[in-house]
């Protein structure tokens, strides 16, 4: 995304869809627009959202990183175990930083493997997905930890914003939402206003040209994976905070929602396209869809169906927009290896 002028295209469509959906649900269920519901929706978007932003960053440089759930659990479980072993009374910031560092390290490994192995990133990260998770569950442990560090418990009670609902009750916006929004804002600014951010897009758009410009393509790609890992780990950590429980077997099953959010939000599998705002909107769309199906009278069993249809439609939109459905002319990034050099 370079400029607001591009906004009307994909992100705009998502925004419109989102609004329509919100109105549809809101008419049936008046509660939809209450502070409680909105805050709750935002809270539910946080974990998926953080995963999705990380996933998106890798998509921008032209890669695919499916290992984020594994990084999430390793970061989460690892932090808690470390804290309980060495410093149970650690302040939240320290725990947060430790989680981020674990994620950064794992993401770094991902990046190095993808750039060195010259293999499709989908397959490499499928490998690390298993590697990280298997390592955690076999060598570290599988037990639930209920006695998480107090800092986490305290943090979970914190709200950044308290509003009074219609019925007089106090409703709070959880602080994790603030973290999520802050991260979204930071990523937005970095992508748009720093040369590093523009380099990510450049590498995704034309890695060969980027190299000629003197951009260190491998370093930029590795950095993207590193950032994705950091965000994934933070997401995992925050999910443990919310549940007050560290379960190393959790977080599986959300992969599809994350990928769907990014794709629906406008990121292209071929790389170089999309915006973090779009991803944010995509996440909201997914979350609202999931949460509101019941309200709309659709049984929960249909959730996956709905997401599947949404995903297929979202992918189909840019194809439709180009008018002619000649597969041979329109196929974008058909397989696993990106055309144009670079196997990120």
């Amino acid at each position, binding site marked *: 995304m370079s400029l607001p002028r591009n906004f009307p295209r994909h992100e705009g469509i998502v925004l419109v869809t989102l609004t329509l959906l919100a109105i549809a649900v809101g008419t049936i269920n008046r509660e939809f627009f209450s502070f409680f519901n909105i805050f709750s929706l935002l809270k539910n978007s946080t974990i998926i959202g953080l995963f999705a932003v990380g996933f998106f960053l890798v998509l921008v440089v032209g890669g695919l990183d499916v290992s984020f759930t594994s990084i999430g659990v390793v970061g989460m479980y690892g932090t808690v175990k470390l804290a309980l072993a060495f410093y149970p009374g650690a302040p939240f910031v320290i725990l947060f930083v430790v989680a981020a560092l674990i994620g950064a390290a794992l993401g770094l490994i991902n990046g190095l493997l993808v750039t060195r192995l010259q293999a499709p990133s989908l397959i490499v990260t499928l490998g690390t997905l298993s590697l990280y998770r298997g390592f955690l569950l076999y060598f570290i442990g599988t037990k639930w930890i209920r006695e998480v560090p107090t800092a986490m418990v305290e943090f979970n009670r914190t709200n950044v914003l308290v509003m009074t609902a219609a019925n007089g009750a106090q409703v709070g916006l959880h602080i994790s939402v603030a973290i999520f929004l802050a991260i979204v804002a930071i990523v937005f600014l970095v992508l748009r*206003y*720093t*040369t590093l951010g523009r380099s990510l897009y450049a590498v995704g758009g034309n890695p060969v040209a980027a190299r000629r410009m003197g951009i260190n393509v491998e370093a930029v790609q590795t950095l993207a994976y590193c950032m994705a890992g950091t965000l994934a780990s933070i997401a995992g950590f925050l999910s443990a905070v919310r549940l007050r429980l560290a379960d190393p077997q959790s977080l599986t099953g959300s992969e599809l929602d994350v990928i769907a959010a990014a794709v629906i939000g406008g990121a292209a599998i071929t790389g170089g396209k999309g915006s973090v705002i779009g991803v944010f909107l995509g996440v909201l769309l997914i979350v609202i869809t999931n949460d509101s199906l019941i309200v709309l009278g659709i049984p929960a069993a249909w959730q996956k169906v709905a997401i599947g249809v949404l995903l297929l439609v979202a992918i189909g939109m840019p194809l439709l927009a180009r008018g002619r459905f000649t597969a041979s*002319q329109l196929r974008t990034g058909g397989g696993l290896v990106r055309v144009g050099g670079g196997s990120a």
Partner: protein
Amino acid sequence: MKKENPASPTVSQDRGMRQVSSTTSSTRLFVEGTPASDHPLLRAVNLSKHYDGVTALAGVSFEVGTAEILALAGENGSGKSTLIRIIAGVERANEGTLFIDGADWTGRSPIERIEAGIQVIYQDFALFPNLSAGENIWLPQQLHQGRRLAARSAGVAMAQRVLSEVGVMIELDRPVAELPVWQKQLVAIARALVHDARLLIMDEPTTALTHREVQHLFAVIRRLAGRGKSFIFVSHQLQEIAQICDRVVVLRNGSKTLDAPMKDLTKVQIAHAMTGREIAPGHYRRTPPNSSSVSLLAVRGFSRYGEYHDVNFTLAAGEVLGFVGLMGAGRTAVVKGLFGLPPADLGTIEIDGRPIVIRNVSDAVRAGLAYVPEDRLSEGLFLNFSIGDNIVVRAMERLVTKTGWISGPRKVKEAACWIDRLSIKTPSSRLPVSSLSGGNQQRVVLAKWMAANPRVLILNRPTVGIDVGSKPGIHQIIMELAAKKVGVIVVSDDVPELMLICDRVIVMRAGAIVAERNLSESSEKEITQVVTESDP
């Protein structure tokens, strides 16, 4: 020495290009022969380069002065690309030195050469399609400066400034992928200028431009030369070289065969230096095509929205029909339409008087058409597969048993047969086709289609990228096909080549047929005139 300008369009609204400054007379500030400093901007001395026993360059020396437009001419395989890569610093010469402003820069890195003002604009422009035009112009510079924060507004201002220097306006907000080719090229030029390029090396810059766009490009080049920029214009198009360049350096087989001011040369001399042979005006002798009443191929009202319109022509069995025109005239689109790639929107096609419908390639192949594409490497061949595999692709019906299993021995025999018939130089049909030279690779593509026994063979620029010595061989094959009563259509930019092999020539312009000539009655000059008559 002042160059004559073609009348530059003073008011040109086409394609949204507005000129910021009028260019009715662009005088050069620098006069050739009085260099600004003692040393020429660039001086190459005795550059040589070998790859695995093949000599790409042998002792090439030349100079480029300030505000000079130098043509670097040569056929494919002459060493032009190698020379450029060495100047850009992407490759190291085995011998020889490179001087910039009199200092030895032989060992310096590409980045340092960019800093010294040497920039290459590659054929593919190396732009970022997903970023805006503006960003493509200012981002590399800011990256180069080591900036962390992207100063967007300053960047945009700089981009606008550079574009005004070039004399053109482009919408800076649009993603580059959406721009037409000539604007992409201007973005590439502007990006080079932002880096304070003093010498721009343009690699085959006019390949994808229409005639009008080429003229615009030349106006830009002249304007920039007027401000002291130098150019190395790499090309093998004689007309363009003659039009724009001050001086010509010709390479052939890695050596320099000519180095003289343009004013002292004729096109024939340049061509001779490039090919080593006189262009023999002549014609391959063979039996004239059938003049039966029913044409082999009759096309009427052939149209495709936005590409070509109301194309009508016939082709007789054994006739060689040439399609000539400027870039963008629609020839490739028409012949691809015949082949179903994609099909036309309107029109009728008749083979032997019977109408047929062509909606896709299968239909075309079934009707007896064959198509040898322009880009033989990615569209015509399966590089990692064997020569034999490549040849038999379209002959499979003959090579399977009754129950449909592929017969290995039959396959080998078929391949051997074609290798022999077309004189493909290879010790074995099992070798990968990537091991062959360009000329032999083209023979493989021809073999593939000949093995399908086509009635009509369409060739799109069949001898491009083939060294001069091999071209007659390809022509020979075409002639043999015609002798066997196959109808041949050849799309080419090379008028002399068409003069050699065709019976008739059709000239296209802007998607329509504008002329048809029998070659026994026309001269090369006449055809060329018809072709270039298109623009004011």
